[in-house]
């Protein structure tokens, strides 16, 4: 436990010296860590040699001072690395300094037979730890070593090294100290290198696992998408195959109905009306399934055009007026004059509004249905907001959250009482989102409901953004804010 704490402490000190520019490359960071460990702690072990010389040599001269200076000079490297981050150059310079230290002390103390010669072993070892797999740098290091050796030999031959006045027993002591120090040094570096390598291997294994998971996920997503597209295609085909015979039922029953009306055959009129309206209901359901499958398959296109909002709302409310009257309802459209025009898919917004207005009419008896349209500022661009409020039966809290899910018809009882396919609102929400908008519902049981449709006022705004993403309208999307303050629906 304590060891781990010390190790973490050392790691943080080491990492502090790494220049930010090196941090992106993990291999580089690991090399720099080995470099820093060797430079921060190496001089402690290396200094054993000049200290031993100082103590043993009866006449320690400038050669000991130079050796000590160049060994402690290693401490400058971490600071330079922190400041400039010029790693390769510093690594090469450091190797050169190391070669110099070793050959310098060999030259003055024993030449070829110097007891400090084992330090030569550390040169390639450390160099290759620092510089990594780069062939160019490795060649430079080997060349550097060879040149230094040649210079050393040439100098040793031409100007024979000064005869050391170190007694031979002391020379042996120097050998022991030097060998122990170099052994400790190499052990330290090997241990640290092994630690780095181990954590690297762990990291790589983890990364491989992540990559495997990611590719599995990708494959699963592709599979799911393919299955989804196939399903959508099947649905689209089926819908067509269902619609063709169904249309014959609707159209021929319509013609028979017209004949019966001409002849005043009341019994036939009633029967044919049932066939006709059942056919219409089934056709609406199939059309909604087709639309939903087209949206899911990404095959539903948008046809934006300039649209007069007042005309749009007038058309929608005119269509609903007859059924509203049948339920004793009054539709009251309040369109502020400055609402003007919008650029959007007229047919789709009309489909959405009709669906919601039909619901309002259906679930309200002897009440009021208000339609209110205005422009509001959205988070990115101007939005068109159309609100449809009714004074109907309202929606219970626990039902409102599933309102926009497919095949939700309020209560089992109400589906038979009020009809409805259970797809209308789900489809409306999807269409609205396709247009870059959203629908919210607020309701109070027994008081009424309010549906707010918000779509971009100008679909060109979405095109210029280059995204078909659906912006979240303030507040939850299909999870409506039914808990918001007193809703003025009862008015």
């Amino acid at each position, binding site marked *: 436990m304590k060891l781990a704490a010390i190790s973490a402490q050392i790691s943080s000190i080491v990492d502090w010296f790494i220049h930010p520019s090196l941090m992106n490359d993990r291999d580089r960071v690991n090399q720099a860590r080995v470099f820093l460990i060797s430079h921060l702690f190496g001089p402690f072990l290396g200094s054993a040699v000049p200290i031993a010389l100082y103590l043993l040599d009866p006449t320690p001269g400038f050669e000991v001072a130079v050796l000590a200076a160049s060994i402690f000079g290693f401490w400058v490297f971490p600071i330079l690395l922190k400041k400039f981050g010029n790693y390769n150059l510093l690594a090469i310079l450091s190797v050169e300094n190391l070669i110099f230290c070793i050959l310098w002390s060999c030259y003055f103390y024993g030449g070829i037979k110097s007891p400090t010669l084992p330090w030569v072993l550390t040169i390639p070892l450390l160099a290759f730890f620092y510089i990594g797999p780069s062939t160019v740098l490795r060649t430079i290091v080997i060349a550097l070593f060879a040149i230094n050796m040649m210079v050393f030999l040439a100098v040793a031959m031409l100007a024979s090294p000064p005869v050391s006045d170190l007694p031979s027993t002391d020379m042996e002591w120097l050998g022991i100290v030097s060998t122990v120090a170099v052994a400790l040094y190499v052990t330290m570096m090997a241990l640290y290198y092994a630690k780095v390598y181990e954590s690297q291997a762990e990291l790589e294994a983890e990364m491989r696992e992540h990559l495997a998971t990611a590719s599995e996920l990708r494959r699963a997503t592709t599979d799911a998408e393919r299955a989804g597209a196939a399903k959508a295609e099947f649905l689209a085909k089926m819908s067509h195959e269902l619609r*063709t015979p*169904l*249309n014959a039922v609707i*159209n*021929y029953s319509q013609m028979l109905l017209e004949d019966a009306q001409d002849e005043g055959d009341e019994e036939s009129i009633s029967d044919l009306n049932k066939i006709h309206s059942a056919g219409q209901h089934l056709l609406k359901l199939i059309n909604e399934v087709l639309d939903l499958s*087209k949206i899911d398959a990404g095959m539903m296109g948008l046809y934006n055009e300039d649209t007069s909002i007042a005309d749009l709302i007038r058309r929608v409310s005119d269509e609903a007026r007859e059924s509203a009257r049948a339920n004793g309802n009054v539709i009251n459209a309040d369109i502020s004059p400055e609402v003007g025009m919008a650029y959007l898919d007229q047919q789709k917004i009309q489909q959405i509004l009709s669906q919601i207005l039909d619901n309002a009419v259906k679930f309200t008896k002897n009440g009021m249905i208000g339609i209110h349209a205005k422009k509001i500022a959205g988070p990115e661009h101007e939005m068109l907001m159309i609100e449809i409020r009714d004074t109907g039966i309202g929606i219970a809290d626990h039902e409102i959250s599933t309102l926009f899910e497919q095949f939700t018809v309020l209560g089992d009882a109400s589906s038979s009482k009020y009809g409805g396919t259970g797809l209308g609102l789900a489809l409306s929400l999807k269409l609205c989102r396709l247009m870059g908008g959203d629908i919210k519902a607020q309701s109070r049981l027994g008081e009424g409901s309010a549906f707010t449709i918000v779509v971009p006022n100008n679909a060109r705004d979405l095109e210029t953004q280059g995204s078909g993403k659906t912006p979240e309208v303030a507040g939850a999307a299909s999870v409506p804010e039914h808990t918001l303050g007193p809703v003025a629906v009862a008015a």
Partner: protein
Amino acid sequence: MGKILVVEDNEMNRDMLTRRLVRQGFTVVSAIDGPSGVAMASSEMPDLILMDVALGEMDGWEATQLIKANRTTARIPIIALTAHALASDRDKSISVGCVDFDTKPVDFGRLMGKLKQHMGIAA
């Protein structure tokens, strides 16, 4: 009311469409494939053509292009009828010269609106 040419290869659809249009007061002539549709366009000179897109050998878009290429029939408005309300079908129909586009099976009420609009009949 005006004369409408229905080009439709499915017998039931053709019969239904023809009879319902006749009940609305239109004069209706019909063709069962592309080549006869093109021929009848110039021989009958209808006020509007309802063109099924999936007609077999010569499809409705091809027939439309031929009708539009003939100077005498070029200005007859053509409404394409396709099985799937796909974006690509709609774009293709407009690009070959159709004035409008509707999906089969036709919603008769909606189709009536389009007929009146393109034949200049007051609703």
